[in-house]
């Protein structure tokens, strides 16, 4: 029998090497992990906060010297505990898991909401290295929650970043989807990449279909095993951890009753999306 092995699933620990506060509730952690450093944009890691929980987090950056970074927003007990961790503290890592965004066009539009900009920024950097010219629409509740906006503006050039805030404290007042239709009428994009609140992504999918543009969206669901066994993250016939987290428009059409509307809770019961 050949050696038994599920790619990247081995549990290992590492030390936090840097912590940077991006907003009152958002931090960026950097640590060393050889396997995760090979991650592609869109892939995620299962991060163990010893004694607390293990949570899926999308990878913000990964590079050849074995370092990876993640963006963590405080949304519950686990992320609160993680955000109180300091340089030198131990965390556990599994992954990277899942598929990734495919860079196959030059004229691309990114639509990110909240922490959803993490994998999109990673993707943007890789795409620019391949001479693509991304336009980035980014939405947040308020200016303080527009994380990484400076880095985005530097990466894409300021004129290619359209920021929206719900309270109008920065950029256009409204949701990330507010300037989208005008933009799509004006410019022809080959593909839209989106990550963020699912209701936002659903609206982006509807617009992509209306304007006949390819789309890839990165989904989030409850996760346990992350290797396609436990069924916690299923949407339709897909397992978000294994068949996703990135899905194209054609796949999302097959789950149109669920995408943007419902997910399974910890008991496996279908509940409306918040």
């Amino acid at each position, binding site marked *: 029998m050949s050696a038994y092995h599920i790619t990247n699933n081995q549990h290992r*620990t590492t030390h936090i090497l840097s912590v940077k506060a991006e907003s009152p509730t958002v931090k960026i952690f950097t640590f060393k992990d050889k396997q995760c450093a090979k991650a592609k944009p869109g892939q995620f890691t299962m991060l163990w906060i010893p004694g607390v929980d293990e949570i899926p987090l999308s990878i913000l950056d990964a590079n050849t010297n074995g370092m990876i970074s993640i963006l963590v927003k405080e949304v519950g007990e686990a992320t609160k505990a993680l955000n109180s961790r300091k340089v030198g503290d131990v965390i556990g890592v599994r992954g990277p898991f899942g598929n990734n965004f495919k860079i196959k066009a030059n004229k691309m539009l990114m639509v990110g909401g909240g922490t959803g900009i993490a994998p999109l920024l990673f993707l943007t950097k890789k795409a620019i290295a391949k001479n693509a010219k991304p336009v980035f629409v980014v939405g947040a509740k308020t200016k303080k929650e527009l994380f990484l906006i400076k880095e985005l503006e530097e990466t894409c050039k300021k004129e290619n970043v359209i920021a929206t805030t719900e309270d109008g404290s920065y950029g256009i007042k409204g949701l990330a989807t507010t300037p989208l239709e005008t933009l799509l009428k004006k410019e022809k994009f080959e593909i839209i990449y989106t990550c963020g609140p699912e209701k936002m992504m659903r609206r982006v999918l509807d617009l992509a279909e209306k304007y006949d543009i390819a789309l890839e969206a990165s989904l989030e669901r409850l996760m346990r095993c992350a290797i*396609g*066994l436990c*069924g916690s993250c*299923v949407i339709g016939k897909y397992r978000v951890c294994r068949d996703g987290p990135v899905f194209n428009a054609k796949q999302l059409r097959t789950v149109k009753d669920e995408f943007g509307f419902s997910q399974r809770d910890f008991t*496996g019961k279908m509940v409306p999306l918040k």
Partner: protein
Amino acid sequence: MKNGPLTVNLAGLTLANPTMLASGILGYSAETFESLVKGGAAAVVTKSIGLKPRVGYANPTIVQADYGLINAMGLPNPGIEEYAKEISETKKALKVPLIVSIYGFSAEEYALVSRKAVDAGADALELNVSCPHVKETGLEVGQNPKILAEVVRKVKASVDKPIFVKLSPNVTSITEIAEAAAEAGADALTVINTLKAMAIDTETVMPILSNRIGGLSGPAIKPIAVRCVYEVYESVKVPIIGCGGITNWQDAVEFMLAGAAAIQIGTALATVGRNVFQKVASGMNKYLKHKGFKSVKEIVGLSHHK
């Protein structure tokens, strides 16, 4: 259904081939089951369902071992009232037998949930009396022949569908438990559930699973499972469903030679993929031809010297 060399009759259920989805793997919705049937599964077993919803344990709920996986999910399930809808939906869409896995905290509860599952459309039931990581159900039932017999009798009296009992290897004598289950009316025995196991992180000196102890599955437990099937085959007359670390057709054939009439696959879905059932079935078919057997039934228990 046309009978082929791989067709199996299992306690009244007809399976197009001997491969089944093991309980606990995927198994919430009709669409998921359908995707596994597309992958070749000839029958599917749901996650274990109880009377009330359970959220399960906090993560980490799974940890990789060298030759397997240790899990302690904690029997997450939406409860039978909610799950009954999934059963009827699945039943409408599915062309293979649907077996609902049941757990309970008393014999009455097992019987009540079983009844509701059958009313919703279950073709058979598999009693989980062997979960190694939830207290007062599972192992507590599966380690005690008297309690187990009472559970089986109560369920048997309340439904008219085949009842499988999934046995635990975490016992001194699996044959004693198997005999108790068979005498109480079990129509088939699933052998085996996971083995109690744990993993400790050396850096933090902490057990990795939030529940500390979980159940080991995968190739690591296969030789133990084969031995259990072999022993149970010698002690009872009811059909045995082999389970534990089956990854390829050679593994499946080994279980059948030991005495299994059908086999279940779980962990290998992560290593091989959803088409693991097809691969196993087609390998078995070639084996039968090569060895000159007309039906897979001919190899069940063939390794026993009578």
